[in-house]
């Protein structure tokens, strides 16, 4: 019998598969001609009490930020203020995208004001809210760069330069845009190697995609020089906003020479990641690129009304409608609540937390100085095993084995929401695992809902739906 919520047992594993509970086949009958309808449909059919229990139980088998620290480097898992859920759920927020501009002045104003806020925060002249996620923002940015070069008669530029430590999405987004990727190795200090960059840049360079601070938590101190080099080569400088939480109120991509940037609203503006999304990836650009933004864009008219319009050389659309609008409402509400003081303090505390934790961790922590995250090295231990063992200590582990610059990387980002006590406890977990032997690590985890899961057989023998189960 399924164990009550408060405790898992080993011998009576709860296996609540919807399909196994009360599957029913419905013969389809319709006023439509038979040939236009299917014959039957077989989906589970649960009464509401069982449905509620099913999902309550599933939720209890899931770890979220509300469960404890979630120091996944580059993922910036911070607390999600709940009042933003309430405003996104307001009836007035629920409108159809084809509504006339006159009838949704509220939505347009909110879009406009968020565009404005993000422009100020990023130091950008114009911002589109349409991309539905960070990677979609990257792709939109590449599209914009492409259109820009094309409009300038530089359509031959077909290369995007990306440092090796960059997020995988950078590579994939550039490729999706039809560009060849020129990967450059990082320097010994973990930053862009200017010589390598110089060698990579050329007349075919469309853009350099850069994360700053980078995925090692290091600020690219040569950013102005980098910008000059890219611009001198005729390329554009793209800012990956994944680590913007480290810079709020201290530096702005626009001021550093970036031409295009995306924001990750969950990382910087605390919208929930929801187990994988929805996110939103607004893209900011300098004035030179503003005419290429996706349509419809929103602007204020002289009469104080808001209107949709198509920028003169718009690339068209990157999402069927207006992106993940409900998520953007939450981002607006967060920014509006924190204001200058709060945003600036969030960065300060995020950086302080990362540096403090780096001090407490006994694993080797090469490079530095760090901003919002640091990458420790598990050394002789397997970083993936370290992660599994940390689960036994009740915390979520860091991102592992990436970036590859650091052996057996433990990429750790506590964010500003953790207390000193939490960081001390987290460090204790790191340090306890550091002292564990290999056998212990390999057999971990032991205290989780599931023990170590066989990834290999999952991929070798894919079972991707109920239909594939015995």
């Amino acid at each position, binding site marked *: 019998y399924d164990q009550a919520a408060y405790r898992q047992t080993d011998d009576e594993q709860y296996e609540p*598969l919807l399909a196994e509970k009360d599957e*029913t086949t*419905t013969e389809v*009958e*319709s*006023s439509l001609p038979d040939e236009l*309808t299917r014959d039957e*449909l077989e989906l*589970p*059919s649960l009464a509401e009490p069982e449905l*509620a229990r099913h*999902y309550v139980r*599933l939720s209890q*088998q899931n770890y*979220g930020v509300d*469960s404890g620290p979630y120091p996944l480097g580059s993922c910036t898992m911070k607390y999600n203020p709940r*009042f933003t859920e309430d*405003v996104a759920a*307001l009836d007035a*927020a*629920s409108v159809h*995208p*084809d*509504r006339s501009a006159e009838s*949704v*002045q*509220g*939505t347009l*104003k909110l879009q406009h004001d968020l565009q404005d806020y993000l422009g*100020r*925060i990023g130091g950008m002249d114009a911002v589109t809210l349409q991309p*539905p996620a960070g990677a979609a923002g990257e792709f939109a940015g590449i599209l914009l760069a492409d259109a820009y070069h094309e409009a300038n008669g530089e359509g031959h530029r077909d290369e995007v330069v990306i440092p090796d430590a960059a997020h995988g*999405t950078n590579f*994939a987004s550039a490729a999706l845009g*039809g560009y060849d990727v020129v990967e450059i190795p990082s320097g010994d200090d973990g930053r862009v190697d200017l010589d390598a960059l110089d060698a990579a840049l050329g007349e075919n360079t469309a853009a350099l995609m850069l994360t700053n601070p980078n995925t090692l938590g290091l600020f690219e*101190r040569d950013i102005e020089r980098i910008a000059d080099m890219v611009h001198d080569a005729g390329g554009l400088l793209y800012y990956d906003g994944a680590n913007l939480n480290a810079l709020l109120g201290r530096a702005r991509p626009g*001021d550093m020479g970036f031409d295009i940037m995306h924001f990750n609203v969950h990382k910087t503006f605390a919208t*929930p990641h929801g*187990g*994988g*999304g929805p996110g939103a990836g607004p893209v900011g650009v300098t004035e030179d690129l503003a005419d290429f933004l996706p349509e419809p864009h929103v602007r204020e008219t002289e009469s104080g009304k808001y209107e949709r319009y198509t920028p003169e050389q718009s690339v*068209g659309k990157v999402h*069927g*409608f207006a992106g993940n609008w*409900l998520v953007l*409402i939450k981002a607006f*509400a967060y920014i509006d*609540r*924190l204001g200058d003081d709060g945003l600036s*303090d969030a960065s300060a*505390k995020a950086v302080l937390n990362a540096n403090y934790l780096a*001090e407490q961790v006994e694993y080797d922590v090469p490079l530095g*100085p760090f901003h919002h995250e640091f990458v420790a090295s598990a050394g002789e231990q397997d970083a993936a095993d370290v992660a599994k063992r940390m689960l036994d200590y009740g915390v*979520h582990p860091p991102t592992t084995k990436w970036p590859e610059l650091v052996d057996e990387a433990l990429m750790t980002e506590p964010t500003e*929401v953790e207390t000193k006590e939490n960081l001390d406890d987290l460090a204790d977990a790191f340090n306890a695992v550091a002292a564990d032997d290999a056998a212990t690590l390999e057999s971990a985890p032991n205290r989780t809902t*599931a023990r*170590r*899961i066989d*990834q290999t057989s999952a991929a070798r023998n894919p079972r991707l*739906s109920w239909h594939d189960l015995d």
Partner: protein
Amino acid sequence: MSGRERGSPYAPHTDDETAAMLDAVGVDDVEALFDIPESVRFDDEFGIDAKSEQEAVVETRKRLRRNDDLTEFLGRGHYEHYVPSLVDHLSQRSEFLTSYTQYQPEVTQGFLQALFEYQSMLVELTGLGVANCSMYDEATALAEAALLAKRVRAADGVRVLVPEYVRDGHVSVLENYTNGADVTVERYGTDAGNVDTDALADAIDDDVVLVYAENPTTTGAVEEHLHEIGDLADDHDVLFCLGSDPVAMSLLQRPVDVGADVVVGDASVLGLPTSYGMGLGVFACREDFLRQVPGRLVGASEDADGNRAYTLTLQTREQHIRKERATSNICTNQAWVALRTAIHAASLGSEGLVDLAERMVELPRELAADLDGVTGVRAPVHDRHHFREFLAHTDQPAPAIASDLEAEGFAVHAVGDHRLQVCVTDANEHAADRLVAAIEEVTH
């Protein structure tokens, strides 16, 4: 809070703790930790005032309240069905809402199982072998389908055919996503609201990698030529991609039965209220395309104790491993919407879904008949079966009618000069009679 400086309300540090931490780190001031050259230091302000939670709620609410409270009869790719209360209550649970992608499956079995169940429902609805656990929306899913077709066919300079009824915006997304892969998007003709199979036969050729059609179409017609489209595609070794949604698929021809190789669509018709176009991209395809599937897949496996367990799988397709050779650049997807959709679908069950879908056939039939009774209106324009929505001809200019209807509290689409498109579901049917009266009113 006592001892806590003004700043982020979500940073928990007391002054004492901050001091102790700075001390441990070995700096006097947190600013010393920012390794930023002076020349790019930002020493201005954003000009955004910090607010209390109460004030922030009021500010956002105040803006949104500028929206007119209209009863919407809008569709064309974004639809509303009544969302059971339980969907909100369950999906808002902290453990779901505040979690990340399931990189550590041992502590995220709950969400993984929910996504596995979502995939399973899509497999059942489409009849196809594989469904991923979400794309952004229908438009981007269609684009990914075209890219998959190109990969599967491994051809250069190829064409994708989409019918004329597809939204321009969706085609724009498709073009933007596929330009980089040297794919050309072409429109093919329609006939009385359905695909014109002759036009398609003329357009299709061996350089085509994908032909797209919808059921129902963007203008609400049930597509009656799916088998022929599937056959035409087969004849030319072209992939057939069908656009649909979970409610429609629960009643209309099963995609696999008409030869669909890929199904895309928007599954947020279950689970989300009208959300200014926020979606949940369906992506399902034949099992033999498995290694070419974009996006995330959840698979069943076993843990060290031999118990069933779930995990993200086949990740070598993905950008974080394969980088520029990945099947897609997608990372964050729409997982939480998929959770909501799964809850909504499970709460309806097979019979509830089929019942809902059948109402989506009956409601537009009834409303069209009522509108047809209004002088100067002819509905539906096409002699087809309809699903949720239909076109109506108006003797008077449609944009003016739509505008007048707004003043009466209703939103409908004006499509061209003399056509309205009207969408009716369980969410707005209570106001259908009033809409008819209002149309009568504003056209006389």
